[in-house]
């Protein structure tokens, strides 16, 4: 499958997903799209993620194989690098925190070096790190901001977050940076994929699809907030209904909202069955979440089984004469 076909396939898929609620809501299926689908999606999300993690966890970690990126702990006078080559749980936890929260390994790509010539500074890979950080964190902020739709009174932390997010204090309603950054992040990740030939070569429809999906979700969100303003009071009525398990579908919410809600539902439902589960998977990665205590503490392989070996006795039986002749000690002298 080449890149353009992958992209078209993904675009068409997202296009169809946009049309479904449009048609459905026009046909009066508001409770289907406003209640049933979201519930199903959230259920699928939780069950799916749990099932996935359980599925991974069911496979044991037979060997302790951390990728060591720093000095091991050996002799007391040699400074060991407990972060890059953890030798205890504290080190592992710190390594994982940096990995999960700051994408440390990705940051390793970053190069800030000067080469021959007039100040060529190269940090192409750093852009990937930056793009990833922007994308993930703005997504997180957007997600957390949406908590205001699911609680009354609104958690003060959400207010705080909104304050920070909208610190520019421009526009009515106030402009949130996270929304724009999310769109920019997605756009960057997409452009990377199509402009870097290596990436284009390796990309699958399942790489483009989530990007398009998230882009559409974010755009519909932005449109609803700033341009085609939807009736926020009714929306909150609906979301609070969902949150309190007393679902209602108020009249007069624009179909834009249903598109947004449906795509979010699709994203939730799609999540556990796609590469998006890397969010959960990163915690289980044995090259990162194990301490390099290999020679200190024995690691147990639950399926370790006896194997056929060539024993010393068999070996000596074969070579005894020659060994005796060469003056090598033997167990059995004949």
């Amino acid at each position, binding site marked *: 499958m080449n890149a353009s076909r992958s992209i078209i396939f993904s675009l068409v898929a997202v296009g169809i997903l946009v049309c479904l609620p449009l048609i459905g809501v026009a046909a009066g299926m508001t409770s289907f799209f406003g209640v049933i689908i979201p519930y199903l999606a959230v259920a699928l999300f939780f069950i799916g993620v749990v099932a996935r993690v359980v599925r991974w966890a069911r496979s044991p970690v037979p060997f302790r194989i951390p990728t060591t990126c720093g000095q091991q702990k*050996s002799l007391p006078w040699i400074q060991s690098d407990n972060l890059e080559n953890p030798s205890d749980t504290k080190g592992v936890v710190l390594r994982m925190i940096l990995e999960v929260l700051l994408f440390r390994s990705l940051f390793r790509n970053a190069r800030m070096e000067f080469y021959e010539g007039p100040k060529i500074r190269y940090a192409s890979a750093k852009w990937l790190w930056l793009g990833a950080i922007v994308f993930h964190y703005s997504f997180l902020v957007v997600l957390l901001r949406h908590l205001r739709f699911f609680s009354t009174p609104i958690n003060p932390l959400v207010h705080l977050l909104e304050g920070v997010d909208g610190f520019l204090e421009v526009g009515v309603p106030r402009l949130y940076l996270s929304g724009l950054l999310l769109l920019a992040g997605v756009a960057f990740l997409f452009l990377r994929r199509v402009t870097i030939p*290596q990436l284009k070569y390796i990309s699958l429809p399942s790489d483009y699809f989530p990007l398009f999906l998230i882009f559409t979700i974010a755009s519909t969100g932005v449109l609803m907030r700033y341009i085609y303003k939807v009736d926020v009071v009714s929306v909150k009525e609906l979301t609070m209904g969902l949150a309190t398990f007393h679902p209602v579908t108020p009249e007069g919410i624009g179909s834009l909202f249903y598109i947004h809600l449906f795509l979010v539902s699709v994203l939730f439902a799609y999540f556990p069955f796609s590469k998006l589960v890397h969010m959960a998977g990163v915690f289980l990665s044995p090259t990162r979440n194990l301490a390099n205590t290999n020679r200190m503490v024995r690691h147990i392989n639950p399926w370790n089984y006896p194997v056929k070996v060539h024993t010393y006795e068999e070996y000596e039986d074969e070579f005894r004469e020659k060994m005796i*002749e060469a003056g090598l000690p033997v167990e059995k002298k004949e």
Partner: protein
Amino acid sequence: MAKVPKADELAKVNHRPPQTPWTETPVEFRPGTFCYGAKPKNLEVVGLPNPRDWNPTDEDWKLPDDWKDITIKGMKDRLDKFRTFKLFMDICVRCGACADKCHFFIGSGDPKNMPVLRAELIRSIYRKYFTGSGKILSKYAGARALTEQVIKEWFYYFYQCSECRRCSVFCPYGIDTAEVTIMARELLNELGCTIDWTAGPVANCYMTGNHLGIQPHAFKDMIEFFVDEIEEVTGVRVEPTFNRKGAEVLFITPSGDVFADPGTYTLMGYMMLFHEIGLDYTWSTYASEGGNFGFFTSHEVMKRLNAKMYAEAKRLGVKWILGGECGHMWRVVNQYMDTMNGPADFLEVPKSPITGTVFENAKSTKMVHIAEFTADLIRHGKLKLDPSRNDNKIVTFHDSCNPARGMGLFEEPRYVLKHVCNHFHEMPEGTIREKTFCCGAGSGLNTDEYMEMRMRGGLPRANAVRYVHEKHGVNMLTTICAIDRAVFPALMDYWVPGVDVTGLHELVANALVMKGEKKRTTDLRYEPLPGMEDEEDDDV
């Protein structure tokens, strides 16, 4: 007259591979870029599947009739047994961070050598047979059917990965292509599609204890040959012992160093060091191989070969094991041995009899790396060293992949190096320590028929050596790996003529002032020591 093509037209002929998606680009076996198929006799010795005469260039690979079932079932087994495999099949987001980190990609320019794509070769099959979306959406979900073409492709590319783990350093999820390659090779192995360069040493090692299949008496003889050489250079006669019960330490090192230069000089270095400090140690002819080509075959074969180390330590009643300079041996010892063949409760926590240092870091495995051991000796001032004897050597250090990314052994060898020679220069950042570049021939790819690919894979490493060669006049590449010592001479000869290869303990031995030694005029290679050029002539 026929139209004469223009040069750039000529250049374009067959140049760019067809712009087909990778899934539809078949592999082509060109001499120099693949290793020969395993000979049946080598598979039979260890009872590995499907022994037959075959070669990768054959149209028909004589796979077993149910090869497809074997492969799918093999995948399922391994998905259930290894969390790494299952996880690494699922979580890659194809961000491309690893793409340009592989020495084979950098040197060959073949996009299928990008680690992410190497893994996709097997991931696409995983999706087809083990995921719902792959079954339903097929290629729209990045899945493809398992065909004989795929097996050939696996063979080509998974024997084009040296399991060096450089990509895993850069992966945000720690996906380790080495782990994927290990699984793929296990699957290939089940079909009998393995390479002779690993199958041969495995068979030999299984039966005789070492890769070349040297029988016990000959092994002893070889070591004693070096005793004479040492005496000739130093005037000191070292006295190695073999299979001796009751020795304190069992010493195990890769057998490659017994048979081929320049590893042999490192071997002499060990013996001189042990003699000088009066270490109570023994060689073993049964466990005469530190290397483990089983690691490049399957976990099971690795375990079967590795078992000899503990078995022999137990039989001889030694207190602990000392391991020589070797790359993959130390990956196996550090990350697999104790789990596979332990617990080594018949051994004691290693304690240096010279310095009294207890090696707490090896308290379970009970095996110490010689660089740790020697660094400790130097730290405690137990060695009399004259680094100026190495003054004609301008040295750089290559971090071997396995001790680097499978252990984190960075400072110990450097500490030793800085005490035994006066001219040491690091290669550029980004090519050393955890980011070190592979020699291009690790994981059982150090065979001569693979020379072209080795030159490609070794280019990034050689290029960094070339830099220090030109900048600092470096003429000696130090390494703590026997495969490195075997393959770097060719790599240097091609890319950076004028750079020689040595092991760490050869330099130690050169600098080591031994009790009762004669006036040393040459190094272990019979080359004059600095300032002794004339005296050497007198000797002759």
